[in-house]
């Protein structure tokens, strides 16, 4: 099936900034296309437009046409478009409509009134292609991130679309799961004659699969051609940190944890025997999805209560770490946005802590200036770009000058430019004595910033070692995917 996009323009409201700016392109049946671009450049909006969702949502000003084999999607109800197009959302959890894998896989087919025997056959085929046969009888909430993504893809493949669109399918996944999705796509390329459009930041993982790359910036296509000719996909992180052996001589402990354990009641147990963190260190918290990285943050901040353990912060025994001594930034920027203006967002915390004095207000202004939001003080935070929201989260935490900053997967969904920008800011913070613990997946990021690595596996702390020693540990124990020499996918 061929896709034709003609003069496609989209904005949320009249006279507002264009999200898609006169997009024109042709996609021939069977092509595999990679769409790249910065966060907020319009990639997902374009994918929504091709899938017909953008027009049928009727939430903005839509002009132009998308045609699938000469048929305008604007004139076709969304529930008919699914015969031609399958759309896999960024977060599998957002896509799931049922409670278990079997029902999820059957959902679309049942809606199409497919015969039950045919449903079973198609499900079996889709599970085989995605290598997810063993998941059939499982409940969705039991699955890991990678397994969920496989089920999400299988549930779309079962519908046998001619065009498959994947919106950042690996953004929430660890390296192992990312490789698994790569294998699924490779298998798909061999076994089915599909048109595949993928939006992905981890370009290097997928470059062998795609023969065409489209790069978007500010809603415009600025490159459309062979992937190896694209000037944009070989962009690398530039910021590099000096490691503490060369820089930081402050060996005083900011945080120490002993015999730390937490059990969530569903069989998961977090165990940390001994952990000591010095002032001014950057600790990369690494491990597969579900290894306990977020749970670790939850336990030390008192979001969940440990069954046993002792924690000392700046030499004093504490039950939990609390703001404003620490700052915590979540993976999802929207979870930490409450107010109607950027300025109020930061002053909200200051008022609650009774710190809305001249000194802190001035500090907030400095931070707005430093993080490039000084001209958006009256803007609605929910209308900021993804990168800007992340910066606002950082300002809201940094305005209290915390001595320890906890970052939970904040690089997820960020393009290489945004990552580099945040890395630069973290470097500045560390040079000013701040201690940072950051949960990350990517070895390239780890190599750039981490002084030491805290490695968790199935809830247990395997080690907390300086970067070089961690690399040796991984090499010796066969954890090749964590080695920074490996292609990072950035």
């Amino acid at each position, binding site marked *: 099936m061929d896709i034709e996009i003609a003069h496609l323009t989209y904005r949320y409201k009249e006279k507002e900034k264009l999200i898609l700016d006169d997009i024109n392109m042709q996609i021939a049946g069977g092509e595999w296309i990679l769409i790249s671009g910065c966060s907020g450049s319009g990639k997902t909006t374009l994918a929504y437009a091709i899938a017909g969702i953008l027009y049928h949502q009727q939430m903005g000003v839509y002009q132009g046409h998308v045609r699938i084999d000469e048929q305008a999607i604007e004139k076709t109800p969304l529930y008919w478009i699914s015969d031609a197009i399958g759309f896999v959302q960024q977060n599998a959890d957002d896509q799931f409509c049922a409670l278990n894998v079997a029902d999820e896989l059957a959902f679309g087919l049942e809606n199409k009134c497919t015969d039950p025997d045919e449903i079973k056959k198609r499900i079996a085929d889709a599970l085989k292609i995605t290598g997810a046969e063993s998941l059939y009888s499982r409940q969705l909430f039991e699955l890991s991130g990678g397994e969920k993504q496989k089920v999400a893809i299988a549930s779309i493949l079962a519908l046998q679309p001619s065009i498959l669109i994947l919106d950042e399918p690996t953004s929430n996944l660890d390296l192992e799961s990312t490789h698994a999705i790569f294998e699924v796509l490779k298998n798909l390329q061999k076994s089915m004659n599909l048109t595949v459009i993928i939006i992905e930041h981890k370009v290097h993982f997928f470059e062998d699969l795609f023969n065409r790359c489209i790069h978007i910036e500010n809603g415009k296509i600025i490159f459309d051609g062979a992937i190896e000719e694209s000037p944009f996909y070989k962009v690398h992180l530039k910021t590099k940190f000096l490691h503490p052996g060369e820089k930081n001589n402050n060996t005083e402990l900011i945080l120490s944890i002993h015999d730390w354990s937490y059990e969530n009641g569903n069989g998961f147990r977090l165990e940390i025997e001994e952990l000591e963190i010095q002032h001014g260190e950057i600790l990369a918290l690494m491990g597969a999805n579900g290894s306990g990285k977020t749970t670790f943050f939850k336990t030390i901040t008192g979001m969940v209560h440990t069954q046993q353990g002792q924690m000392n912060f700046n030499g004093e025994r504490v039950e939990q770490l609390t703001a404003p001594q620490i700052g915590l930034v979540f993976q999802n920027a929207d979870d930490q946005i409450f107010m109607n203006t950027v300025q109020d967002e930061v002053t909200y915390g200051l008022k*609650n802590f009774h710190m809305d004095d001249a000194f802190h207000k001035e500090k907030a202004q400095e931070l707005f200036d430093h993080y490039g939001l000084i001209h958006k003080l009256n803007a609605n935070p929910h209308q900021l770009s993804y990168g800007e929201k992340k910066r606002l989260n950082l300002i809201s935490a940094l305005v209290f000058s915390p001595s320890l900053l906890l970052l939970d997967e904040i690089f997820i969904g960020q393009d290489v430019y945004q990552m580099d920008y945040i890395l630069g800011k973290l470097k500045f913070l560390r040079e000013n004595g701040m201690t940072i613990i950051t949960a990350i997946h990517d070895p390239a990021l780890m190599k750039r910033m981490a002084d030491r690595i805290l490695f968790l596996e199935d809830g247990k702390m395997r080690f907390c070692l300086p970067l070089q020693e961690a690399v040796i540990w991984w090499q010796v124990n066969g954890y090749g995917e964590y080695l920074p020499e490996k292609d990072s996918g950035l």
Partner: protein
Amino acid sequence: MKKIAYSPANTMLHALHPFTKFSLLLGLSVSIFFIDSPILMFFLFIVLVFGFLTVCRNPFAYFGMRTTFLTALMIGIIQCTFVKQGSELTNIFGLSITNIGIQRAVLISIRFLVIILCSYLFILTTSPSDFAFAFMQMGVPYRYAFMIVTSMRLVPILSIDGERVNFSQRLRGVRYDFRKPGEMILHMNIYIGAVLYSLINRINKLAISMESRSFGRYATRTYQNPLHFTFRDGIILGIAFLFVLFFYYLKWKGFV
């Protein structure tokens, strides 16, 4: 500890048609208020406990089960303490415990347990999508019947979002202090706004996901594993109906 949710298994209760189970649940929940005999109530309770044991080995492994039994115990104690009718059996610190008090305590606390355990048993043995299908078989349009599935999908997500927003507020210095109602209302307002924003986002994505997989395309839909109302369902419903009739007959005659 596990959450009370549908748990697939090959028991007879699982195999029953959702309509049969729902009718039994409704029938029992209504009839139980007409049972005044503690012995009959205790018999029903024992039957339910056996039902539970066929579905799970340790009912106390579920969240809320201990609280349910503790609440039943509290109800019993309150009944014992405050019901003054009947003859006094004993006196504890000036509180007389009567025979009718104990009878009422057993009756009401077990009645509470039976209703809760019945509902739990229904949830544990009935898949929400089968339940939706059963509604469709009863003539309810599947768009409405499916609301059960989508709400069950969204409720735990909403609860996680709520926890996260609450925690984010705490990180920004929010304390819900009852002595400052104005401040508390402001924080609650902000909390509800943030949770609603997240919920609307999720509903929007779920709606996209459903519609782009042909939800609503036809007035009806097929099911991978269609449910059939079997002979066994008929027999069980029949026996339950006869049991209820017999019970009302005994009640009318003044035997129970």
